[in-house]
């Protein structure tokens, strides 16, 4: 058992591993197979079906992302000049705007992937769409938080309605927050994927429409410091560009991690099912005098969240 698993109480561990898994030998495999070492372990694992396709390039990305983030933050703090009006506070711009840009693009990308799913009906595209939207939602929370901090710093309020990006983000966040409840309120995996795709396309198309509508509605009470990037001085624009690239890298890495983890979990479930079937076949041959209790073997695979 890994040290992390040994330190946590069993009940919590069981909850973290999901309701469909019971404590036992299989958990150890799950913990090992998760996370960034998936590819290595899958390769070293006996009987592992195929190397995880999502793990390809994951190590390089994992190394590049913190590097890019460090460069972006370093440029933000040391290279980009202090803004005349807002001073140091304006540095949050290099976190807030990239988060917003990447989250918005992620939402639209989720819609595009959903279109591919509806055209091909390949569940992998549905999984990609789900993961992209999931990570975008987290980035949207980050956008709201950093925007709120910025608003408090520059206007003295935690929330301002005069900032259309922030307001439209709130609406988009509220919409996408229903994505997972909608998804997991549908039992049938195929229908779940299809409905989620319809939602993703609708919401993806809604993102720009909503942005335009909110922009129209906003009376520009406060002068917008950075309405567009065209009036930025060169060093600031460069820093922003690097920050956006770093954030996009972070987004890609996180998506790949989640995809890898999900793929590994599916592989594990398939293996367990095979194990269970093999065990059943063996016991039905009547070789065993005393049948093993069901908890000692592999747990029964329950796949009610299999579309996720």
């Amino acid at each position: 058992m890994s040290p992390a698993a040994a330190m946590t109480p069993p009940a919590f561990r069981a909850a973290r591993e999901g309701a469909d898994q019971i404590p036992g030998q299989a958990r150890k495999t799950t913990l090992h197979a998760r996370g960034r070492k998936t590819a290595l372990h899958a390769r070293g694992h006996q009987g592992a079906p195929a190397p995880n396709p999502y793990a390809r390039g994951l190590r390089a990305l994992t190394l590049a992302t913190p590097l890019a983030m460090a460069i972006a933050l370093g440029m933000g703090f040391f290279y980009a000049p202090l803004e005349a009006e807002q001073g140091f506070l304006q540095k949050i711009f290099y976190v807030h705007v990239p988060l917003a840009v990447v989250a918005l693009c992620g939402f639209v990308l989720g819609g595009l992937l959903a279109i591919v799913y509806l055209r091909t009906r390949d569940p992998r595209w549905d999984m990609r769409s789900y993961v992209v939207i999931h990570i975008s939602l987290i980035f949207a929370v980050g956008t709201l938080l950093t925007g709120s901090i910025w608003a408090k710093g520059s206007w003295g309020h935690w929330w301002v309605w005069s900032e259309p990006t922030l307001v439209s983000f709130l609406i988009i966040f509220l919409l996408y927050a229903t994505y997972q409840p909608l998804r997991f309120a549908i039992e049938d995996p195929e229908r779940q994927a299809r409905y989620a795709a319809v939602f993703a396309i609708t919401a993806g198309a809604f993102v720009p429409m909503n942005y335009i509508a909110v922009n129209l509605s906003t009376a520009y009470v406060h002068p917008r410091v950075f309405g567009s990037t065209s009036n930025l001085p060169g060093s600031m624009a460069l820093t922003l560009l690097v920050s956006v690239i770093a954030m996009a890298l972070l987004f890609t890495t996180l998506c790949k991690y989640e995809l890898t983890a999900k793929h590994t979990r599916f592989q594990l479930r398939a293996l367990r099912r095979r194990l269970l079937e093999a065990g059943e076949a063996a016991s039905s041959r009547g070789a065993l005098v005393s049948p093993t209790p069901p908890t000692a073997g592999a747990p029964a695979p329950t796949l009610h969240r299999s579309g996720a």
Partner: protein
Amino acid sequence: MSAATGHDAGRAEPADDPTATTTTPGDLRADDPVAAARSAGAHTASPTPPRPPGFAATVAAVLRKELLLELRTLESVPGMALFAVTVFVVFHFALNRNGVNGDEAAGILWVTLLLAALLGINRLFVLDAADGGFDGYLLAPVSRSAMLLAKALTLLIYLVLLELVAVPAFALLLLEPSLGPALPDLPLILLLGDVGVALIGTLVAALAVQTRARDLLGPLLALPLLVPVVIGGARASAPLLVLSHPTGPQPRWPVALGLYDLLFGLVAYAVFDFLLED
């Protein structure tokens, strides 16, 4: 009319599709001209090489079914109207105001209409899902988009009926300026908003109806999507409801509302078919 009748009428709806001529709905009376026309139409529509009915015919059939059902059960529109009037009363006490005007008036009107619309949206597909209406519809060789249009038209008619009650009630109970000067423009703006609500409501209702928590998910999905409608509608109607010298709305709001309706209609048209597959 009792709820039991409504249930019967709901069960009868698969008979609406022309292939199901063998089933005779239990509560169709011979003296009902609409039902008689429908069964006659269904009869002629099934000669040996069955020709699938066109888009308009399908829309008309589904729309007629919906309106007939509503007329017999009176489940949606009276409830929506009553709800809207009750919300006006609640607003009176919550705001502690005898009258409102301008932005406030527009806001209260639109919020009330939206909340009432959500009631209708939640009920829009419930009978179809519960009583096999979707299955019956899918068995028929008809366009699935016709369902979207028919349901959206149903919802649009519900909303217009709702507003015929709610807007005069609002003028009577809460609105300070008289409704007269606002009359030529306000109905148009409300209608533009209704088109958007009907399209979004139909799509969202179809999304939510197959889920376990449909009563919760419907409004949760609908409200964010309706925010642009509220923006356009409330901003356009606010200048009509001011106390002195009401002016016409700035043209950009009705235009934005119409554009949103159009774009969302296209999106709904593109994705709706995928909701009706099983």
